[in-house]
């Protein structure tokens, strides 16, 4: 019996003992291909540092795309050393966190976690992640860029030793032992301009500020210096281009026409602007009209008869001279002529012609060309003849008094008619805000000009509102319809600048492509996110919060977004250099943390 019992037990347990789990033998073994992954160094700005939710803190640093790539490279080179200038555990430089979120109504509330007191403390060392928040290409060769924490860059300051205050970013890069590198330098040269609403202009041009676009020549020179440093090392690498910043949630979350109104609100807002604008327009029209009438009146009484008389006299005199008469005879002929019936008729005709065309001339409209010399004389008189000016001013005051007292109904009719015409023109030009039930373009402040005397206009399709508007009170019901400052919007012109400069910078970057230098077109990566994609069991897109890719600052990425960047780089590296670094599963990396 014992033997049988043993057999039974043996068979029953056999299943448990030999149930080695199945293995799939086709799974590839990562291989290095034609590239040296001995030392990987990542260069770039905040996006390379792992910055997320408006701050740099330990959790997101550990999921920066260079950290993800380095971790995957370790499957090939187990000895790979990849250090990042880690923040103390805690809030790091401070960041946003969702406190509440009402998904149904789209209302949220966040807390701003304060920075750690020690985050700017120096932690000098050799780092392989050299992503420095805020750095632009034009900053990389600047000595003293990290000299202190107030005027210098604190993120650079903290990785420099006490005696290294004067070092430039390129100095630090040149000290690295990189055999392979990636660079995502460049975005900030255009992003800073975009994030300031384009208000800082183009660096080097009049009226520009610190966040202006980097001049293309400066960008090129600086990038070239950087590439020379890398060439000196003999390192191969990948250069990442600059995506079109205008398509990220910072610019797409609040639409140009997100000013939603019901019928009553639209009517009230329209009436409100009308009440503000109409009196201004009417006052302007009245003033201009009265000025015109006064000028016209004074000229037609005090200047034009004389001018017509003189003109006809001169014509007769000059004709006589041309006919061979001497001066005295010619004078006599001319005097006789202006007394003659024909002469009187001619003067009267010219006078009436001038009177008829005078208003048009005063309004700057074209008149009969043969009258041009005469109107030139009138203009000169208006400009120089003090007596005439005084007479006009006096007449204007009299008419104004009479007009304001209501004695000039016909003039009022003219003013009303012209006011209406001008309002129609303003509306047509988009600079007289009107609102309808539904979505309306925001009203924005623009420079006052002759064409836009009010200095406001409504936004048009294609223009962008900055996400930072939601941090202001500009969207409250009380203020939503009021004009928005220029630094909260990107106009079509500013968007054009952004795209033009992005393209030019990218042309420069792409020019460095070579056998050991790959180019990763980040616009392609960003476009695939914007189009929406289903990857590794999760849907991702560029929507704020629920898109999963962009963090709470609407600019930087979530760890999941950085994982997508890491995979894009990994696949590009594999393709170019024949390596087989395995990509990561992006759903292992978090999206926005829901409260």
């Amino acid at each position, binding site marked *: 019996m014992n033997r049988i019992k043993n057999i039974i037990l043996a068979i029953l347990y056999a299943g448990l003992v030999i149930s080695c789990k199945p293995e*799939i033998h086709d799974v590839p073994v990562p291989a290095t291909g034609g590239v040296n992954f001995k030392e990987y160094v990542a260069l770039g700005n905040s996006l390379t540092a792992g910055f997320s939710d408006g701050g740099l803190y330990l959790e997101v640093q550990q999921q920066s795309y260079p950290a993800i790539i380095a971790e995957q490279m370790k499957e090939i080179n187990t000895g790979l050393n990849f250090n990042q200038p880690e923040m103390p555990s805690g809030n790091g430089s401070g960041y946003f966190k969702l406190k509440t979120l009402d*998904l149904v109504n789209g209302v949220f509330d*966040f807390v701003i976690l304060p920075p750690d007191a020690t985050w700017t403390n120096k932690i000098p060392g050799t780092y392989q992640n050299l992503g420095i928040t805020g750095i632009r290409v034009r900053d990389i060769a600047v000595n003293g860029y990290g000299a202190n924490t107030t005027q210098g860059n604190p993120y650079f300051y903290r990785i420099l030793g006490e005696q290294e205050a004067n070092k430039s970013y390129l100095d630090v890069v040149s000290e690295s032992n990189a055999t392979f590198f990636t660079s995502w330098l460049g975005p900030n040269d255009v992003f800073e301009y975009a994030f300031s609403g384009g208000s800082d202009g183009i660096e080097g041009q009049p009226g520009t500020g610190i966040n202006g676009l980097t001049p293309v020549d400066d960008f090129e020179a600086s990038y070239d210096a950087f590439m020379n440093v890398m060439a000196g090392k003999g390192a191969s690498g990948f250069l990442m281009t600059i995506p079109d910043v205008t398509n990220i949630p910072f610019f797409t979350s609040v*639409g140009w026409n*997100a000013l939603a109104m019901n019928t009553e609100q639209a009517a009230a807002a329209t009436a409100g602007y009308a009440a503000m604008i109409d009196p201004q327009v009417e006052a302007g029209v009245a003033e201009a009209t009265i000025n015109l009438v006064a000028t016209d009146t004074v000229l037609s009484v005090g200047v034009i008869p004389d001018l017509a008389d003189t003109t006809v006299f001169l014509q007769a005199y000059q004709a006589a001279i041309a006919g061979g008469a001497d001066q005295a005879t010619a004078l006599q002929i001319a005097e006789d002529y202006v007394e003659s019936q024909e002469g009187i008729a001619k003067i009267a005709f010219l006078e009436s012609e001038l009177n008829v065309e005078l208003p048009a001339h005063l309004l700057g409209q074209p008149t009969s060309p043969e009258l041009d010399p005469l109107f030139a004389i009138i203009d000169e008189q208006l400009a120089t003849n003090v007596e005439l000016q005084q007479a006009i001013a006096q007449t204007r005051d009299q008419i104004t008094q009479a007009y304001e007292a209501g004695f000039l109904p016909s003039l009022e009719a003219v003013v009303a008619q012209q006011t209406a015409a001008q309002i129609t023109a303003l509306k047509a030009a988009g600079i007289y805000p009107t609102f309808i039930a539904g979505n309306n373009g925001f009203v924005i402040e623009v420079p006052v000009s002759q064409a836009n005397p009010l200095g406001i206009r409504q936004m048009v399709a294609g223009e962008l509102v900055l996400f930072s508007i939601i941090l202001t009170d500009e969207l409250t019901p009380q203020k939503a319809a009021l004009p928005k400052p220029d630094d909260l919007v990107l106009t079509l012109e500013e968007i054009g600048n952004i795209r033009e400069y992005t393209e030019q910078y990218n042309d420069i970057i792409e020019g460095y492509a070579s056998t050991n230098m790959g180019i990763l077109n980040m616009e392609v990566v960003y476009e695939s996110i914007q189009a929406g994609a289903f990857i590794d069991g999760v849907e991702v*897109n560029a929507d704020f919060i629920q898109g999963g890719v962009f963090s709470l600052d609407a600019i930087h990425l979530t760890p999941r977004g950085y994982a997508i960047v890491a995979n894009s780089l990994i696949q590009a590296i594999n393709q170019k250099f024949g390596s087989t670094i395995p990509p990561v599963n992006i759903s292992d990396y978090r999206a926005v943390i829901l409260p």
Partner: protein
Amino acid sequence: MKHIYHIRSWGGALVLVMFLQQTLMAAGYQVLLQGNRATAMGNLGVGLRPDASSMFFNPGAMPFMEGNQVMLGINLISSNIAFWDSQTLNSNETSVTDNPIGTPFHAYAVWGPAESKWKFALGAYTPFGSKISWGQEWQGRYLLDEISLTAIYTQATASYQLLDNLSIGAGIVAMFGSVELQRVLPVTSDLDPTIINLQGDAKTGFGYNVGLYWVISEKWQMGASYRSRINAELEEGDVTFENVPASLELLFQPNKFSATLPLPSQFSLGFNFEPSEQLTLGIEANYIGWSAYESLDFNFEDENIAIQDTESPRNYHDSYVFHFGGEYRLNEFLFRAGTYYDLSPVDKGFMTPETPDTNRIGITAGLGYSLGEKLQLDLSFLYIRGQQRTQTIEEAQAVGTYPSATNSTYAVEPGTYKLRAYIPGLSITYKF
């Protein structure tokens, strides 16, 4: 401060809906372990010389059984499925299920008056079931984390010997079943992974089986049987959530669900050949009516933007299983071995993680031992080798089970799957 944010389109909610579209069960939830003598012989039973397990395999065979029998048996299923994310270039990401040991059982009692042409039987067994645990880390965790399906059939049978060499039988079956499945929701919060759990008991389902047994000659016997389909109708199942962040609490409230799962019909035909006193050989074919499994639809009692009724096509086709096995008697020992080939009913693009079904080869061996006249022990060991099967993203997109530009359904996890199972078993038969 409160920030009012005008959401352009509420894509997030749709994402959540998507993850509920995936469904309960897949192919291969049939458990062919209803008697360890049969199991050891390549899982064939319909044409074999009858024993108590014939009430399952072929109720028509029972009149040819000598005396009365009570049989109790159990099997221990240790099965695992490996997954490789072969659809992502250069990926070496793999996972393997960590399934709990499954314990299907069978219990039969067959009795007939002495010298009678009748035999009566009562029994309970578990012809369908599945326990799979992928865990909360694997790539398809938003489709399935764990699943457990149990269907217990109870059966009452009567058989009658029509002729000297021909008998028939029929049984009535009542099915009791339950299902539990759990998946991770694609939500990130400060909590542990958010989980949805669906658990429900099936309404008692009724069906039948019929069989015929023909002793062609002393050396040849033939059996044929048919078992009807039973629909497992889940009603008032419980939907519960774990680790729901506050912002989603309104959407993820406890709920009720209903769903129907077909337990398919099967037609079997088998031949038994006894070339000598010692040796028995058998062949058998089964035709399984998997085409009944057209789609799996979930209806929720309370719907909202995240929880909505789903329909998920399965489109299984009818399939076959072919068996070959033998038994050799040496004194009180019976040595058995066999093999079978189980064709997958699952078409391209419909291979779900609940049981990523592939064509399977079963290799069996076993031992019978008689302890005197009354007691019989049957041991078996079954090794199942599923063909490695790769389902591409394109295949899944083509049938609308994986998201594409025109479709948001996510029902399968494309990739490469491989199944292995090791199943020891034991039956004890008391004869009287």
